[in-house]
């Protein structure tokens, strides 16, 4: 179908659906006024039952922990797929010379960027670990902290040259970190079963509210998620940046 014909068909379909969209929008519950029964139940019960203060973490890792298990494995599958696609043709060699586009030279790194990155990368990594550890107390958790740790690795790349960075970032370590995270989550599910409870039931001691060690099984599942997300994002970063290296003599591209 020609692009113009496709555009015409799209517009006709949009106009045909427009009355339906408008009707739905006008019949939606009024913004901010309707009842939130499930949310109110969680807000009322979770601080008492689980001794945590972050309701979103309680929902994510305890009440709906099974869904988070599925999401984490979705993440693992997507990262594995991207890695297989990128590594399959390139092989597993590590080369550390950055590639050049035709006619453009590689600009030297500016000292300002180096200074800022060298100062902020450890701060960002520490902040990421803080966000992970305070999952059940303040806004944060495994997902957010994992991505922040990935951004810390990105700052490391920006501050150092590609050569230096590639030499100390070994993808094997991050493979293992990601796999360990996923495994911890599943073992946290099977652990209560060995004690006679259900899968992913919170049977660890719950601790005191507002303490760093509280929430029982939430700590374990949170740690597993943080490891998996951090490892996955750093792996993706590594592989995407690895694609920008210069080709060796024996590479098939």
């Amino acid at each position, binding site marked *: 179908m020609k*692009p113009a014909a*496709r*555009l015409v068909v*799209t517009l006709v379909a*949009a106009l045909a659906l427009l009355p339906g*969209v408008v009707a*739905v*929008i*006008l019949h*939606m*519950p*009024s*913004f*901010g*006024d309707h009842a*939130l029964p*499930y*949310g109110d139940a*969680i*807000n*009322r019960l979770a*601080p*008492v039952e689980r001794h945590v*203060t*972050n*309701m*979103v973490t*309680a*929902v*994510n890792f305890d009440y*709906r922990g099974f*869904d*988070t298990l599925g*999401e984490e494995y*979705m*993440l693992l599958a*997507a*990262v594995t*797929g*991207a890695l297989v*696609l*990128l590594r399959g*043709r390139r092989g597993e060699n590590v080369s550390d010379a950055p590639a050049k586009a035709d006619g453009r030279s590689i600009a030297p790194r500016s000292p300002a960027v180096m200074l800022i990155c060298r100062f902020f990368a450890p701060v960002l990594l520490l902040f990421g670990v803080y966000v992970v550890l305070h999952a059940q*107390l*303040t*806004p944060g*958790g495994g*997902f*957010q902290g*994992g*991505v922040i740790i990935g951004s810390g690795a990105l700052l490391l790349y920006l501050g150092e040259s590609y050569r230096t960075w590639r030499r100390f970032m070994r993808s094997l370590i991050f493979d293992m970190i990601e796999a360990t995270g996923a495994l911890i989550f599943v073992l946290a599910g099977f652990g209560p079963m060995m004690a006679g409870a259900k899968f992913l039931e919170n049977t660890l001691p719950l601790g005191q509210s*507002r303490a760093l060690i509280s929430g029982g099984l939430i700590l374990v599942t949170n740690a597993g998620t943080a490891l998996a*997300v951090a490892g*996955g*994002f750093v792996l*993706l970063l590594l*592989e*995407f940046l690895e*694609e920008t290296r210069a080709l060796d003599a024996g590479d098939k*591209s």
Partner: protein
Amino acid sequence: MTVLPWAVAAWLLGIGLYGIITSRHYLHLIGCLTVLQSSTYVLLLSAGYRWGAGAPIFYDHPPGTPAVDPVVQALVLTDIVVGATVSALLLALALQVHKRRGTLDPEELRPLRR
């Protein structure tokens, strides 16, 4: 004005679809897919809002203060991270397409055109 959240979500969905349909570069298409995903986040979070309520974090104030719905926030939270990873997978696929066919234009890459 109280239908603004739903209208914004519908608008983002519509414009994201329009971008995908009329795209001439696969990377532009993946960016429009991101916009499409963000429309669902806006819809879900607007469905969980309550006037005059705070965040569902009870560290500073005691449990029992009015708070918004934490369930939709949990849904959107994992969704954002997984959506980014799926976009990475799509980007890797786009790279392989470029390596084999030399172009990233959907018009040039029709299956029956060699």
